[in-house]
Structures are given as structure tokens and as C-alpha cells.
């Protein structure tokens, strides 16, 4: 099923890149990528290295950071409507695309405590498109209803909101989100509709025949392993080592 040599991370990166390029979605002229988001960052770089006219703002480059108003500028940009696409994840994600970055159990995470909400409660409402990404696909993560809402997937009338989730990419599949519920859109190699149903805590729609998540092309793989990895390794050295075997030789790039 899996073509020899395609790393699972490479498939996820490519799947996200295709969602970014979805012509049916609002244009993504400016993509921002937050902390600890190696796979979304790589997907964004792939789109750019494929030659698309897109501006990337990567928050956690140790130097050459695009912002000059400090960490506030990302949020100001989103407030101004100048960020078209952002990525979010969650310790829990439910079928209404609600995100929980607080913790399980009662507030503030009496079960398992997660890191905290970061900017999600703001960015999710201010950005026309959000691609949700969470590699772990289990009933622990994909739940019927999140224990605590860090950022809501759907807002009441009269609450200013520019957009919500476009899709959710996991280690097993791609779901798309229509503003109310998820639909299973493609299966990664080795997965079936039954295996997804068994691993997913929330309900979702399916189409008559769910396709497989497409393989990266040779051209995409070449870009990932060369120029994309070049751009990534200063910020994500461990990821580049693990996925592409890129060792850090320049001490200053660590």
C-alpha cells in the first residue's frame, strides 16, 4: 500500500498542502504558522516551493522572524484580516470542531492538563480558514464533546467570526468541515472506513466511496527533502533529523 520510502510525515505534509491549495476555499495569500507546528510549516513551505504566490509568516524562527512588533503582531495581523490561513490542533477535538488545549476533566484540567490555549481562542475566529492538525487519531483525542472549549468551532449569531475549520488532518485520514460537521474525505494507506470509525469518538458523515489520501509526487518529495528541509531545519532540527535524516552541522542553526 505504502510506496517504499514515503514517510508518514511526508504524506501528512502533502495532504495539508493540497488542502491549502483547494480552489474551492478562500484564497490563502498569507499563511501564518505558530509554535511547534513542523508538519504544517513544511506543508506551507511546500506550497511556496511549488511556485505559488504565498507569503509565509513563521512565528518561531530563531532569527529572521518576520515580525517587528513582537509576538503581538501575529494577533494584530489576524485582527486586521491580513492572515488568510492558520493551523491549530488540540488535546481534544470534537465533532463540532471545538478545540480543547486546556485539559481533560474539570477546569483547568483536573484529568490530564494540556499546555493551555495559546492564541487559539482568538485566531480560530479571526482567520477565514483554519486547518486542524493532530497526528494522534484515537478516541482519546477525537471525542464526542471536548471537556473544555479553548476555542469554539461554531459561534452563536452576533459573534464576529471570519471563518472556522476547513479540515482536520490526522495520522489516519483527512476530514473536511462544512461549518457544522465533519465528513471523512480521504483515508491514509492501511486505513478503512471501519478503522476510522473505530478510532473516532465523534460522529461524522461519509461519502459513497472514500478515496485514499494521494501519495506525494516525486516532484513534491524532491522539494520536501531538499529546499523545504533547508528552510525548516533551523527551527525544527529534531524533526528534520527524524524525518529526513538531516543532521545539524552548524551549531548556530540549532
Amino acid at each position, binding site marked *: 500500500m505504502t510506496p517504499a520510502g514515503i514517510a508518514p510525515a511526508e504524506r501528512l505534509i502533502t495532504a495539508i498542502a493540497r488542502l491549502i491549495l483547494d480552489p474551492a476555499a478562500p484564497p490563502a495569500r498569507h499563511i501564518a504558522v505558530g509554535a511547534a507546528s513542523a508538519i504544517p510549516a513544511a506543508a506551507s513551505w511546500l506550497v511556496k516551493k511549488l511556485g505559488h504566490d504565498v507569503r509565509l509568516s513563521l512565528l518561531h524562527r530563531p532569527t529572521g522572524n518576520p515580525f517587528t512588533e*513582537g509576538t503581538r503582531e501575529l494577533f494584530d495581523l489576524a*485582527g486586521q484580516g491580513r492572515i488568510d490561513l492558520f493551523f491549530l490542533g488540540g488535546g481534544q477535538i470534537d465533532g463540532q470542531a471545538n478545540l480543547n488545549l486546556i485539559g481533560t476533566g474539570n477546569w483547568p484540567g483536573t484529568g490530564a492538563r494540556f499546555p493551555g490555549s495559546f492564541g487559539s481562542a482568538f485566531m480560530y475566529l479571526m482567520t477565514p480558514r483554519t486547518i486542524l492538525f493532530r497526528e494522534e487519531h484515537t478516541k482519546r483525542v477525537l471525542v464526542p464533546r471536548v471537556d473544555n472549549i479553548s476555542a469554539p468551532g461554531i459561534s452563536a*449569531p452576533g459573534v464576529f467570526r471570519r471563518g472556522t475549520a476547513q479540515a482536520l488532518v490526522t495520522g489516519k485520514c483527512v476530514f473536511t468541515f462544512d461549518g457544522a460537521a465533519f465528513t471523512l474525505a480521504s483515508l491514509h494507506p492501511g486505513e478503512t472506513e471501519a478503522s476510522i470509525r473505530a478510532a473516532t469518538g465523534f460522529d461524522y458523515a461519509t461519502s459513497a466511496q472514500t478515496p485514499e489520501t494521494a501519495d506525494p509526487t516525486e516532484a513534491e518529495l524532491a522539494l520536501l527533502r531538499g529546499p523545504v528541509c533547508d528552510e525548516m531545519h533551523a527551527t525544527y532540527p529534531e524533526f528534520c533529523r527524524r524525518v529526513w535524516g538531516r543532521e545539524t552541522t552548524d551549531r548556530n542553526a540549532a
Partner: protein
Amino acid sequence: MPQIDLDQLAAGVPDGAMLALPPDNSLSPAAFAHALVRRGVRGLRLLGVPVSGYVTDLLIGAGCVQSVHTSAVTLGEAGTAPRFVAALAAGRITVTDSTCPAIHTGLQAAEKGVPFMPLRGVIGSDLVAHRPDWKVMDNPFADHPDAILLIPALSPDIAAFHAVCADPHGNVYVGRRRELATLAHAAKRTLVTVERIVDFNLLEDERMAPGTINGLYVENVAVAARGAWPIGLLDEYPLDAAHFAEYAKLARTEDGFRTYLERHVLPPAAQAAA
């Protein structure tokens, strides 16, 4: 401005102070935090600007902290902040959860001298129900129902960070990390460590001034060479990933954390006694 040393700077932080700290990617004052641990400060109320990292986890592990107000606590690629999670589970600290732009907004309100400032988004998050200090009102400029969040001004007792350099007038260079300028404007007192003191006035240099915080906001500066270590400092030196991994591993347990303190934070005497 009289220069003082790192321990004198740490001595200026009283027990119970509300202490604002930048995250690991933005001039985090690690050497200063080590000095606070050695001084044995207690009951700090930490504010993450806007998130918290190694320094917060370390101060919590060392028993210096009573509460954390932050948008997240994380060691980045090194994973969960173990002492934060353990202390919260054990009930030794409380956490006030926020979201990054809300912390920026509260500091901007204090910078501007207004009692509150509005912020879009957030409504619909459970954060709102757990922040009785926040208010939701109807936007008085809209001709239709339009709920908007109001964040009260946030003025920390003390802001602390580690910058590249300062001059003899107390002007401090933070480069593009301008959230620290807002923080210094908002805070009642600002304590800074720097790599070095330069011998010219940073504000008289048109190339340096844009990245400089005016000394009028700065109470004291102490020199601490490599004072962000194990965190990196702009283009001066990178994060020490091996040390970070060591911290993340040792701090998983109380005993491991004590070992870390003895190895890297406590004075030689305490290390010898250990």
C-alpha cells in the same frame, strides 16, 4: 544608573510579587531566575507574556510560585512543562488561563493608561466563564447585536527579561522583541539582565534606537553574560537543545528536578552539600 549584580537584582523581587516573564523564544531571563531560586523567593504570581516556558517551570519546581497567569506553559520541542503539570495536579499552584492576545491586550491597556481594552474573538471559549475579571458587552458602535470582550488593564509589579545590551543611562536594547517594550511600559518596575554594557547612548544612535527601551522605564540593570542560557538569545547564541532535553528528562520527577537544581542552579556550597 548604578549597576548592580545579579544577586542584588534578584534581591529586589519581594515574596508574593506579580512577576511578568517572556517565553523561551523572547529574551527569557534564565540566569535571573536561577538567582531567584538561590535567593529562595516565595509566593511569586507569574505572568507569561504571553506564554511560559523553562523559567516558569523551573521557578515552580523550586517552590517559588503560588500562581501562574498565562496562555500556555510549554518546553517547546522538549514537550510538556513537567513541574507546572505536577504542581497543578498536587494543588501547590493555581493557574489563570488566558489566550495570547488577551495578555497583550491587558498590557496594552496598562501601557495606554486606560482601564480596559476590547478584543475580538474569544467569545464561545470556556475561558470567558473562568475569567470573572473579563466582561462581555455589546459593541456600542454597531447597529446590530455584536458581543465583544473587554480585558482589564494588566500592570505587573515587576517585569524581568534578559536583553542584548544596555547603556550607562539604563536604556536597554531588545531588538525586534517589542512586546518587551510594551511590557516595560505596563509594568510598575522593570528589572533587566544584559550580556554587556555599551559605552554610547543607545537613544542617540538612530540605528539602535528603534530596538531600544528608554531607561525611564528601567529600574535596574545587571550584567549576566550568557544570561539567557540554556535558552537562546536572538542571533547571539542558540538554545542549548541538549541541556533542554536534560532538563525535560530530569524534571519529570521531584528527585530528578532536585538533581538538576544541584547540578546547574544552586551555588557550589549547596552542590557540595548535596
